[in-house]
């Protein structure tokens, strides 16, 4: 304990911090990214351009960013959590007002040369903000009914904005990430029971409203659900993506067609093959062996992330770490389920493998926070953090 205490008090030097990093986790993350490069190279029919090279550059930049974030004291992130959340929320609103419509939805905002997807930023921002909220909360009050209202609001507002874009997938991801934080923070199980009942009611309302003038979802969203439930409904239209994806994926068999040889993806039968459907290409080229390998690597990242979280001595760090892990899990699970026809096509990328700047940046930023929490796992938080005034109930 003495040594731990010493760590907490005497600020460690930068090399010490680097040494302390959870390197197995970093290696696993890099491995996933490397698989991504290989797949981007493959879908471009054995070319670095247009995707693989840019993906590598983005990873290199984001990776450095991750290390920088990891080196910054976790208390700084704790302090700026609400600010981060506020900025992300503002950007979401901005997207609503002045966003670029892409793929049938308002998702991007252009700031100079940067093309930003605020909904991606919000995934991490929400995790951090909720972690801060529960960290600052008096544990006695954590079971108080009223204390669940602010986090619910913090989740509902961005989720509603994202639904309006419309991006149902990201909204579900945000909401589930937020609720998991609440769960880990120790909110009463009764709350979750009530929530489940509420969700059931909402689902019922959604389906009941179909075709009414108060329809809760857009027709294409209903279509996606209907086609998800029965893809054969429309093999040339809405079900086409899923059907083609399943055909290409299933045709991989045990060991696949071989790298750079996936004929379905090669011949353009696959839509979005470099982004959302990259896993199908992997399935076609490497078969079950390749798919299970990637799944294991992902679960490995998750496992290392969680073990790291359990060793963190402050609630903020633990919640951030678990939140990042949960977000990461939600990404790959939803994407895989989607391309294998288990979930509707909702536009969630395969983390670190799909081509895409914002999601890579956000995921590595998240892992940066996780690592920061790990490196600074034993720091003592001030009694009142600088931005804690937003909620009066204080720790201690």
């Amino acid at each position: 304990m003495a040594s731990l205490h010493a760590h907490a008090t005497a600020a460690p030097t930068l090399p010490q911090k680097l040494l302390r990093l959870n390197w197995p986790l970093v290696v696993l993350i890099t491995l996933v990214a490397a698989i991504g490069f290989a797949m981007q190279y493959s879908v471009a029919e054995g070319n670095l351009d247009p995707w693989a090279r840019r993906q590598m550059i983005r990873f290199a930049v984001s990776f450095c960013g991750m290390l920088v974030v990891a080196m910054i004291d976790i208390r700084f992130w704790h302090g700026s959590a609400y600010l981060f959340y506020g900025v992300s929320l503002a950007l979401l609103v901005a997207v609503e007002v002045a966003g670029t419509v892409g793929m049938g939805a308002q998702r991007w905002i252009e700031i100079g040369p940067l093309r930003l997807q605020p909904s991606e930023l919000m995934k991490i921002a929400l995790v951090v903000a909720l972690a801060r909220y529960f960290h600052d909360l008096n544990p006695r009050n954590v079971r108080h009914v009223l204390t669940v209202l602010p986090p619910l609001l913090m989740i509902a507002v961005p989720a509603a904005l994202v639904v309006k874009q419309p991006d149902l997938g990201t909204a579900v991801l945000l909401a589930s990430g937020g609720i998991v934080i609440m769960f880990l923070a120790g909110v009463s199980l009764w709350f979750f029971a009530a929530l489940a009942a509420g969700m059931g009611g909402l689902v019922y309302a959604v389906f009941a409203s179909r075709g009414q003038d108060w329809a809760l979802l857009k027709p294409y969203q209903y279509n996606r659900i209907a086609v998800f439930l029965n893809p054969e409904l429309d093999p040339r239209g809405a079900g086409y993506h899923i059907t083609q994806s399943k055909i290409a994926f299933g045709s991989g068999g045990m060991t696949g067609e071989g790298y750079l040889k996936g004929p379905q993806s090669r011949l353009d039968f696959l839509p979005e093959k470099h982004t959302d459907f990259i896993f199908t290409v992997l399935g076609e080229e490497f078969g079950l062996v390749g798919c299970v390998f990637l799944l294991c690597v992902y679960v490995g990242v998750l496992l290392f992330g969680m073990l790291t979280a359990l060793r963190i001595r402050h609630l903020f760090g633990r919640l951030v770490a678990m939140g990042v892990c949960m977000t990461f899990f939600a990404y790959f699970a939803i994407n895989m389920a989607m391309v294998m026809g288990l979930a509707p096509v909702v536009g969630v990328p395969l983390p670190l493998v799909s081509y895409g700047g914002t999601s890579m940046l956000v995921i590595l930023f998240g892992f940066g926070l996780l690592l920061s929490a790990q490196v600074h796992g034993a720091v003592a938080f001030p009694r009142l953090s600088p931005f804690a005034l937003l909620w009066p109930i204080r720790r201690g």
Partner: protein
Amino acid sequence: MPLPPKSRTEHDRSVFSRRALVLFGAQGALAAGLGARMYHLQIVEGAHYAARAERSRIRPSLLAPVRGHIVSRDGTPLAVNSHNYRVVLYREDADDVERTLDRLAEIIPIPPLRRKALLEEIGRTRAFLPVVLAENLKWEQFAEVNANAPALAGIAPELGFTRHYPEAGYTGHIVGYVAAASERDVARAGDDGPVLKLPGMRIGKMGVERVEEPALRGKAGLSRIEKDVHGRPIRELERREGTKGDDLRLTIDLDLQKYAMQRMGDESGAVVVMDIYDGDILALASTPGFDPNGFVLGWSTKDWVALRDAEKRPLHNKAVSGLYPPGSTFKMVVALAAMHLGIAGPGHSVFCNGHIELGSHRFHCWKRGGHGMMDLHEGLKQSCDVYYYDIAKRIGIDRLAEVARKFGIGVLPEIGFIDAKEGLMPDKAWKRARRDEPWHPGETLHAGIGQGYMLSSPLQLAVMTARIANGGYDVQPRLVRERNGERIKARSLRGIGIDRAHIEAVKRGMYGVVNERGGTALRSRIAMAGHEMSGKTGTAQVRRITMAERTTGVLKNDELPWNQRDHALFVAYAPADDPRYAVSVVVEHGGGGSSVAAPIARDVMLKLQFPTEVPDGAIPNGAAPVFVARDDDGSEDA
């Protein structure tokens, strides 16, 4: 009152750890579920999806087989494949069909009506199947389409084959023609249906092209082409060439066929020449002819209407489907029936006073005043109607019909032509079934001179003559002599059960018809020993001669409108002493058999026996000169 810091942290951590474990367990379960799904898709259903993947990227396409050629007996091409430059459209490759057609129209004119029909066809055809937009293009047009291919999305220039008939009008009825398969053709073809729908694929609609369709068509090949989602071919994975259709050599002697067609001139009718032993049809002329190439390239409306509505019916193959009362050419069969049944031997004689009474009816001989005493030989030679009325009455219709069928009268010849007719040899059962009336004895008398209900085709008359000439064997006509260079064996002949001696008696009578004084076809005799012709004239009445007309005098043919004149018939075989060929000639509404049909038969028999030049003295002095064929190389004017 705050809890001690340590215990609070402990509490926090234990709740967190428990819940984190629950969460991780849930995530692990979900990940395992994903793994199970992978296993299900890739292993359990892997083969199914692999097959579907194969299907969606590999397009098997049929390769049209090359149609077999048809040549005449001496090897002259009658039906060949010539190059066909055509342009097809694949709808799935065309962004905008209308615009593509607009652009194509700048190179190849597409009239509005044609355009409308094309758009309909394009709409009907499945997107990845081609639709022929234009065919038989000139090379210049084809090259221009090729050069502009990048601007013509969905258009593919193709080199195909088109059927060509070099001998055009001379062999139209025999060779027939091909045309695009109809929906019914496709349905009937079963497994071969898809082949028939290939662009440029044609199916035989008439003649040998139709009879031998399965053999001529050949077997389609298969090409498996890997295509991308847009239908663009990437590469050919496999190519199995089809099998070319059989090449056929017909029994038709083209020179003789041309000669017969020309010899008929403007007359409407038919000439059939047949080998009496192997059944080879050497000529099967039906006039007027038509050019089958018109069906391949398309008729203009005007030409088509003219052809379809012509009084002399050029599209009708009169040699196999024209039905005429055989008239006196049937008398040999009546005589044979009488002898066969033991009713009247060669010595049986009848006195002809110009008519015979039966009940209240009077049946006239063609010769007013009568022939006097007639026996079988004279009766045949002079074609005495009364003699045959007499013996037919004794035979009775049913027994006459039975013998007639042995000679192929009223029986469908085995030539396979879809339009071949079986004619009509009436009997009591037929009349009861068809007309629900009893048979009148007087009708037997009409049948005895080949009139009344009786109908037969020129081909049947040739078969009848051949069976007499060969001594009573069941020869059948055939048109195909060789298949892919392999000779087809002639059917072995079987006797039809008629006594040879009876046949010889009839043959002597037929010799008399042409070669003896008093014979009805004496003027058409061949005077060269060893080449003589034996035959029988016939004149088939088309209208009924009324009692009133008989008293005022029967109208001459010249006085009647064309379509009420008598049909002129003649059947013959040669050489008389050692026969080899049988011929039948029918000239529709031509007048008398002796004056019109017999000279044609004589000329054809001379051409047969002296293909290059008829020697002096082959015909007697004073006879009509032998017709000399024009040498026009075959195509026009036929």
